[in-house]
């Protein structure tokens, strides 16, 4: 199938599902960050749980390839924290900002414009960051099972149990 057509179709399904789960709303995202409403966390962890099992099953059959981003502590930690600061203010992440716009929440337009400016600013700083922050703690493209030298299915079972334990706790607390 044409790659661009596949992209837009996959995106339409994903946007449809996210709108139905109400995860593209500012109130839901801030609800999670204020530790009051775990809707987006439930959505994300369920997606991860199902996809993790499916992806490793297909990987064992030799039908797919992984696409692991490198672990660079400087970039992942500093960038992650900076992302979080911005996320708490705009209340949308990049994909959900597009979804929010589709739903008519047009404050996300300003968030999206800011994101494009932010990408441009990052491009200006990239040569400097590449020599500094992005060299701090570079461990390459590594997974947790590889780092621990443990069979991936053991890790998957432990993670699934941990996620389900969290879900039970969220429901008990009414989060």
């Amino acid at each position, binding site marked *: *199938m044409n*790659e661009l*057509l*596949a*992209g*837009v179709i996959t*995106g339409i399904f994903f946007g*449809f*599902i996210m*709108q*139905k789960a*109400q995860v593209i709303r*500012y*109130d839901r995202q*801030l*609800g999670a*960050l*204020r530790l009051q409403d775990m*809707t987006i966390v439930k*959505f994300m962890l*369920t*997606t*991860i749980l*199902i996809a993790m099992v*499916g*992806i490793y099953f*297909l990987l064992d059959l030799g*039908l797919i390839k*992984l696409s*692991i*981003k490198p672990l660079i502590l400087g*970039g*992942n*930690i*500093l*960038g*992650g*924290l*900076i*992302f*979080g*600061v*911005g*996320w*708490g203010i705009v*209340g949308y*992440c990049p994909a959900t900002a*597009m*979804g929010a716009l589709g*739903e008519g*929440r047009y404050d996300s337009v*300003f*968030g999206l414009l800011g*994101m494009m*400016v*932010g*990408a441009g600013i990052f*491009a*200006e700083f990239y040569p400097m960051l590449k020599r500094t922050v992005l060299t701090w703690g570079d461990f390459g493209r590594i*997974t947790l099972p590889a780092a621990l030298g443990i069979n991936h299915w053991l890790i998957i079972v432990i993670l699934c149990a941990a996620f389900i334990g969290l879900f039970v706790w969220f429901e008990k607390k009414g989060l």
Partner: protein
Amino acid sequence: MNVLREKKWSPYAAGALAGILLVLSVFITGKYFGASTTFVRAAGFIEQAVAPDKVASMDYFIKEKAKVDWQFMFVIGVLLGSLVSSWISKEKKAVAVPSMWEGRFGPSRMRRWVAAFLGGIVVMFGARLADGCPSGHGLSGLAQIALSGYISLICFFLGGVIIARMLYGGGNSHE
């Protein structure tokens, strides 16, 4: 098809569907979900129109060339999918200021839009430094049990929780 007209799906059911969608995407086209690189490409397109020579010489735009690829179409698809979903459940309405924001910061559109724009800049700078957003690092990274995904997603939430606390204070004043 009544289920498609429902206003809200359980986040677990929706998450499971998104998980299946991610597995199918990897299986059929080899593509993992992600969104933030598209903002670099979009910024590249805009800067190219103004200063093509400069863009051609910038490391980051050489790395992430201004082009329409799978992910670019995926991100556009998210907007379309959300639009269709909210359309058929009759939830589509123009919202200028999210209700939780209004409860805390008042109905000023300008205040919300400026904050969304500035927050957007910070979000994308962080996402590019971390090399991913909650889609790429969060969903795709964790589904592959990538260490970079776990570290980044934890930092996204850590930064977000701290800022949400600063903006809204502690306690459970919501609803």
